[in-house]
């Protein structure tokens, strides 16, 4: 019964994964004379990739910035804050703001990219607003491209963390909190000693999932800035895409892809370990 699924996954995912490794040792390009008769060149692509000035370390640095600023701060920390705040708010307001946040998460990423592109462009709403306040503004897509894409990614992705956390927080027993209050525990202490330990598994799962999602993200950044200006917002995925499909160094691109696959594998292993510890895999049957 599982056969059709296995075949489809092997053909369309397994085969390209294997070929990524194989091609990374060749000199394939699409348009050049080597198009259909490339040959093996050993570790040359990797030597070129790990040489200084290849753009690899800068791309990894930008990917990490994107991960920390947009996923950890903008989605996880802000999502947790939002979930805590909503608990204290009136029901109607909670429903209204919750709906806005979730809609931002649901709409296609290309539309999100376009909205933020227009918002931050010269002549867009951000410039109008800052000029109304008497401040100078020139497009963040040019001056602060990494901050611009990180803001957009926080905005569209915070709903996922917020939804996970608000579900986990609503499972925290009310009387436990009340008992701590009676014992004189302040707000921060209650958060640190009672709430955080109770939702720690949810936090871990959320962090791993958004890490995988954010490190692999391509569309939002590519659509908003194209990796530019120059290569100022070229994260790992955009770096790979531009090498492969813009300058047509396909084989060199696959060497970058191998780095991405390795990174993804590390986080997938961490995820499996967390799920196992939690017993969510229930394989012991």
């Amino acid at each position, binding site marked *: *019964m*599982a056969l*059709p*699924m*296995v075949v*489809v*996954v092997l*053909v*369309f*995912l397994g085969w*390209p*994964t294997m*070929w*990524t490794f194989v091609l990374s040792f060749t000199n394939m390009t699409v348009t050049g004379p080597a198009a259909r008769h490339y040959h093996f060149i050993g570790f040359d692509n990797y030597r070129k990739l790990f040489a200084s000035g290849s753009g690899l370390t800068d791309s990894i640095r930008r990917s990490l910035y994107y991960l920390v600023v947009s996923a950890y701060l903008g989605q996880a920390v802000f999502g947790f804050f939002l979930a805590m*705040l909503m608990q*204290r*708010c009136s029901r109607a*307001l909670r429903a209204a*703001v919750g709906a*806005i946040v979730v*809609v*931002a998460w*649901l*709409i*296609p*990423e*290309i*539309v*999100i990219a*376009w*909205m933020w592109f227009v*918002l931050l462009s010269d*002549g867009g*709403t951000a410039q*109008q607003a800052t000029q109304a306040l008497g401040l100078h503004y020139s497009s963040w897509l040019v001056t602060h491209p990494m901050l611009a894409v990180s803001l957009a990614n926080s905005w569209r992705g915070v709903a*996922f963390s917020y*939804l*996970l956390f608000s*579900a986990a927080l609503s499972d925290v027993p009310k009387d436990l909190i009340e008992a701590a209050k009676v014992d004189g525990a302040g707000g921060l202490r209650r958060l640190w000693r009672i709430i955080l330990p109770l939702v720690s598994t949810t936090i871990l799962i959320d962090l791993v999932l958004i890490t*995988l999602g954010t*490190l*692999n993200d*391509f*569309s939002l950044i590519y659509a908003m800035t194209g990796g530019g200006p120059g290569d100022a917002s070229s994260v790992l995925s955009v770096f790979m*895409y531009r090498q*492969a499909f813009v300058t047509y160094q396909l084989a060199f691109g696959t060497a970058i*892809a191998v780095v*991405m*696959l390795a*990174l993804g*594998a590390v986080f*997938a*292993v961490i995820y*499996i370990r967390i*799920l196992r510890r939690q017993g*969510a*895999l*229930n*394989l012991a*049957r």
Partner: protein
Amino acid sequence: MSTRHRTRRRVPRKTLANLALIMIGVVFLVPFVWLVAAAFQPHPTLQLTGGGGFTFSNFTSVVGAGSFRTALGSSLYLAIGTTVFTTTLAILAAYPLSRFGSRLQRWFVFVLIFLTGLPIIALMIPAYDFYVTANLINSKFWTVWFLTATSLPFATWIGRAFIDAVPRELEESAWVDGSSRWGSLARIVVPLILPGISVMAVYTFVNAWSNFFIPLILLQGSNEPAAVTIYGYFSQYGVDYGHVAAFALVYSLPPVLLFLLVSRWVGRGFMLGGAMKG
């Protein structure tokens, strides 16, 4: 602490929280404002203006325009095709995964989770090469299969959890009455996990509908779905922003409506249960 004292302290705190949330809500609305305003204005610019009139003409011209219709048609083709193939194959694979415990099954689950985290963008170079070599490039049908492969690991993984929840005893009694494995899957398991299947289907549909980089690389011209068409307007001069804004709104509607519909039916918590597993 007397109750009186507590209530007196709580009221302004709650007001403060409400005010903070209102501010967050307003800030969150900002990116939407221009898109919605531009969609209902005749000939809007990048500047947000209050005046300029109100019109539905952007929507009527978008619905009438051939290029927009072709793009939405492509998106629909990709999304429906991927959803049908993915849900069918995922349930067929999830069933033995849930029912037969073996070492092979254990490995299968690890591989599934592993594949769920696979950076698909990293596979696009060999995938592109494969599609060009096998002459499958620029075919909506074969793009559906690639999209199906990318959504199968997650769908199979949550499908297994849904089937786990169906008691074996229900099936066993059907087998006693002469039903086969296929029979009990179709007549007992599938009807019982319909809420789960709907969650799986919505996730698959929304992802395929919204995906940008797979069709960007595998499809061209009249096969391009809405995501790629909208991207084309980013750098194009002389575009009527009103048309694009209206088009973007129409294109954004299905995911929101589907999520609303299904989360109403199965409950938000259940919907999230699916998201957690991924």
